[in-house]
């Protein structure tokens, strides 16, 4: 070989060794960003709020609809017949549809008969936020997955992304279907997706969500999951809870107590 060809192959070899070395080095020296952040987060001071809710199914009276009525009235949620066009922020669902990843064999009578109160889980890792093309649905610092109806284009990608069916689309103008209008809160218009917002307008005033407020059976507990002394954390420490489709990695903020002394 002549001089320049030899030089070229030598350079090629040196470059590829450098490249492979750099790959190995990066694994050793730089930690993967995701892991480092999570480790840091678990050691960080619990100053930030993370809103969450515990639903105690043993206390929830299946004939009572107070929470749903309070939520839907205060937020001007329309009442439309049929599963295709209905809008729901808070609703009751059969056990086998709420927890399809759990075994359905030989369930207790109570679980077979009583529906489960369901709402948006305000996931820590929300798929709906991930897929929204306009960031009309976004995650707030306090953990609430909020809807910006001004920015929503109605593509419904979030509805496809949500594994829990928590989201409803306004197929038609909702106003004629609102039974009783709450003048203090806006409605939505045709063409946007809506869902439970953990009563962010109530939280802004320092008040509790409507569903928890009107529950007569003390079945709902709302609070700051990051505050170790909060009522919700005490509940989570003492009672075993399950979550909807927890294996998906969405890390929901809603927990369910299935068995209790009332069962």
């Amino acid at each position: 070989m002549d001089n320049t060809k030899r030089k070229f192959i030598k350079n090629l070899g040196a470059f590829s060794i450098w490249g492979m070395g750099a790959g190995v080095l990066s694994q050793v020296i730089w930690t993967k960003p995701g892991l480092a952040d999570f480790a840091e987060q678990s050691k960080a001071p619990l100053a930030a709020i993370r809103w969450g809710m515990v639903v105690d199914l043993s206390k929830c009276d299946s004939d009572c609809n107070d929470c749903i009525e309070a939520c839907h009235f205060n937020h001007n949620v329309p009442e439309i017949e049929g599963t295709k066009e209905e809008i729901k922020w808070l609703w009751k669902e059969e056990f086998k549809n709420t927890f399809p990843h759990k075994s359905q064999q030989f369930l207790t009578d109570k679980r077979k008969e009583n529906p489960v109160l369901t709402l948006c889980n305000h996931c820590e890792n929300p798929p709906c936020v991930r897929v929204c093309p306009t960031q009309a649905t976004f995650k707030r610092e306090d953990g609430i997955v909020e809807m910006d109806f001004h920015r929503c284009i109605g593509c419904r990608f979030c509805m496809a992304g949500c594994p829990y069916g928590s989201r409803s689309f306004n197929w038609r103008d909702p106003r004629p279907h609102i039974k009783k209008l709450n003048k203090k809160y806006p409605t939505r218009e045709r063409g946007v997706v809506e869902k439970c917002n953990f009563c962010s307008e109530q939280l802004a005033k320092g008040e509790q969500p409507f569903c928890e407020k009107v529950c007569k059976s003390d079945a709902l507990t709302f609070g700051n999951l990051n505050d170790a002394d909060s009522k919700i954390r005490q509940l989570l420490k003492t009672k075993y809870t399950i979550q909807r489709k927890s294996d998906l990695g969405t890390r929901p903020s809603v927990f369910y107590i299935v068995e209790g002394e009332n069962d």
Partner: protein
Amino acid sequence: MYDKKLVIPGLILFLALVTLPFWASGGDENQTAKPIIKAGLTQCVESKDFMRANHMQLLDQWRDSVVRDQQRTYVSSTGKHFDKSLTNTCLECHSNKSEFCDSCHESVGVEPYCWSCHLDPEERI
């Protein structure tokens, strides 16, 4: 110029027709309707001149800061604190939407889409 006798009068007529809206508007310089403000209340969020020019931008800023940043309190130029809400702050005082908001909007041909969601507290549903 060829056909001077036709061209010049024609041009003058054309200019007259084109500037018709400016000189034939019926006399009153300020044609927009006078919005009726609810009497007996102290002070708006900002001054009249500021609001006339900027209420659109102000409402947009309010919308973005409330929804995206959760900042619900507005501090006006006079230092007063207001809740950033179209229905609960603005329409609390300017409660007659058709006399206040719509009178100007309709005369200038503007259709803000706020009302498809935000409620008019006095609207008879």
